[in-house]
């Protein structure tokens, strides 16, 4: 790390690691994760959420270790350094495909929410195109703009968490949470796996760390960010378990949105509409980070201009979004992306850590010999 880069105005304060973690982890999953976890571990679902959160902390620790080993270069560069140009490039492409599927999954699911709640008649393609215009515009400003936009968006949405007070008032925790640990260990683990799909996204530190001032300081911020996200998920899960009854939670595809259905003010009948529209800010921030990672990846692998890379991805995403026509097609894709998320957020960083360790060990041995 040379001095010129530290002083560069395009670098961000390491605190932004937290912001990036918030927006990548809390996206569409936050609106609908309860059902999938509850299905596995029933009223002990909150334990599953905690277990998944602890696993995420451990994996994040490994990610940070790997980054430190490679002087906070991004994952695409790490791939090249571990596997060489060709195989490393292939790995990067796979990662880009994964982020692509995540971005399609998030945008299409959000459009589904818009379809169900507000604009039943507007075609998905129109929404996608609108989103892409915003994204393209913000992307041209680079990661710094994305970081600040994300921070502002988070602050605009964050206050909604206070409204959880209303469902909390009606929650019957004593009846719903006890007895603790009724689900077996296996169920808890299956629940954690389901939760993993929602929690995925913390590996964003792989890609943004090299744009931070003093990147060695990101560890604390990253772990802290993850902790906040985990706490939020646990709280929402606890509220949902207390507020809904057993089969009610399983019946509800949008658990968090329905929590807000009881919030009612004299001047505002239904608050979840406000939540949905505010959630747009979170989705935009999330997609911005996604698209930035993808364009960055394509730039690194093929050395193409970011602008063209971005346009290519967007055209592909637009086609994918338009191909997904019905709710059940979307459900199939969502399940698939959920599995990919567990694989790429949890398993892959561990794999990279081990391989990096071995490669380093072999190389230093080779040098000594």
């Amino acid at each position, binding site marked *: 790390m040379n001095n010129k880069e530290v002083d560069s105005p395009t670098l961000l304060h390491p605190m932004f690691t937290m912001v990036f973690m918030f927006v990548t982890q809390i996206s569409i999953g936050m609106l609908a994760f309860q059902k999938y976890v509850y299905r596995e571990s029933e009223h002990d679902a909150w334990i599953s959420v905690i277990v998944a959160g602890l696993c995420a902390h451990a994996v994040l620790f490994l990610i940070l270790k790997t980054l430190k080993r490679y002087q906070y270069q991004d994952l695409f560069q790490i791939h090249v350094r571990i596997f060489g140009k060709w195989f490393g490039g292939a790995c990067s492409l796979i990662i880009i495909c994964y982020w692509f599927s995540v971005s399609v999954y998030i945008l299409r699911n959000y459009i589904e929410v818009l379809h*169900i*709640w*507000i*604009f*039943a*008649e*507007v*075609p998905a393609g*129109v929404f996608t195109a*609108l989103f892409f*215009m*915003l994204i393209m*515009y913000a992307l*041209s*400003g680079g990661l710094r703009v994305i970081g600040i936009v994300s921070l502002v968006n988070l602050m605009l949405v964050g206050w909604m968490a206070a409204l959880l007070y209303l469902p909390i008032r*009606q929650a*019957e925790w*004593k*009846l*719903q*949470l*006890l*007895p603790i640990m*009724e689900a077996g260990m296996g169920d808890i683990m299956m629940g954690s796996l389901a939760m993993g799909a929602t929690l995925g996204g913390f590996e964003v530190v792989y890609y943004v760390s090299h744009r931070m001032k003093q990147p060695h300081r990101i560890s604390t911020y990253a772990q802290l960010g993850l902790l906040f996200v985990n706490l939020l998920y646990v709280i929402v899960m606890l509220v949902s378990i207390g507020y*809904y*009854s*057993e*089969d*009610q939670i399983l*019946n*509800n595809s949008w658990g968090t949105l*329905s929590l807000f*259905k*009881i919030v*009612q003010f004299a001047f505002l*009948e*239904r608050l979840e509409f406000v939540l949905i529209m505010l959630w747009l800010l979170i989705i935009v921030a999330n997609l911005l980070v996604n698209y930035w990672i993808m364009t960055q990846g394509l730039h690194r692998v093929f050395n193409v201009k970011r602008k063209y890379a971005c346009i290519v991805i967007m055209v592909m995403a637009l086609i994918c979004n338009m191909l997904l026509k019905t709710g059940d097609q979307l459900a199939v894709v969502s399940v698939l992306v959920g599995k990919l998320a567990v694989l790429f957020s949890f398993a892959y960083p561990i794999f990279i850590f081990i391989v990096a360790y071995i490669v380093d060990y072999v190389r230093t041995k080779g040098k000594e010999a």
Partner: protein
Amino acid sequence: MHINNREKKRVYFVPYILLIFLVVTGCAEAKIIDKLGILVAVGYDLADEDSNDRIRTTVLSYKPGATSTNTVPTSASNNTSKGVREKLSLRTSAKLVIGQMRVAAYGEPLARGGIITLTDTFQRDSEIGTSVYLVVAKDSAEQLLNAKNRQRAGTGDYLYDLLKKNIESGIVPSPTLHHFLNAYYRSGKDPILPYLEVQGDEILISKLALMKDDRMIGSLNLTESFSVKAMMGSNHFLTHEIELNTERLRKYYEPTFDKLYVTLSHVMTKTRIKVIDKNTPEFQVQIRLKGEMEEVSDLINLEEAEVIHALEREAEKTLKSEFEDVMRKLQKKQVDPVGFGSHYRSSVRVQDFTAEKWREMFKEARFVFDVKVTFVNVGITS
């Protein structure tokens, strides 16, 4: 200079984006408030037997454009509650929107057959909030929504206010869509809904409808309703009248009538339910009732604390026997609106706890009531 050019380019981009947003707004469905018929209440009944349709739906909507609270009922029959919109729209000039719906009424014959499919559509519908009140109407919901009330308020608003008041400080447990579904989807609890009647030019809540799953199977009178609501947790009642046994109180006053009644106001109840025997099962129900004593039906000198305590003990005995009576009735019918099953499930580790299993256990369950009544004060005079 280079950066400046880039910045400029980006700024030029902005108006184009804004222009597109302007054009795209046309894609969304416009809802102009003057042209909407806003639904306030919906009623469902069984359709006539000779027709092919299954459900008769009555909607109560505000007259479009009118500033008064007047609402107009419209009815039509169809096979599904939402499919009927097609037929209703042939009868109304306004576009009916359901987002402001407050009350959903089900005719008793329909309610006895089960209403879950009709409530499920509410839950499925993103336009409807979960604080809609569900009620059972005597005879038919159409009749209820067509009824005039003495206050001459719009029927929809009147129903809503009537229910809301009695939920907050009366004997009606919350019958919102959320609470109904919450109880329905819970293995150890049954829903309970208010039962509305039209008597002459008056709409009133006459009793509570006991629901077994989603079917109405009986009802609770006012005393029983009080007992059930008191058992359902911390509640607030405006007033409650308790009959006292005169025999044991004879030494404190000279009875002029055969019976003695006290009326409490601002009644607060606190209830704790504990499982004390897992096998029977046996429950201990601890009820603490506090209230201001506002009226005694006979002349009693209340200067002595001893007298007040004696009245309190008698009130406890009466309440206890009322609680026991209502539990016997509920056990006979095998419905559990209080949710003892939930208490059982949360304190005993039972594998595959199901509603059917609980109904069998509930029939055999025993309840020990520990009632404590406190008269916070006896008013200004003593």
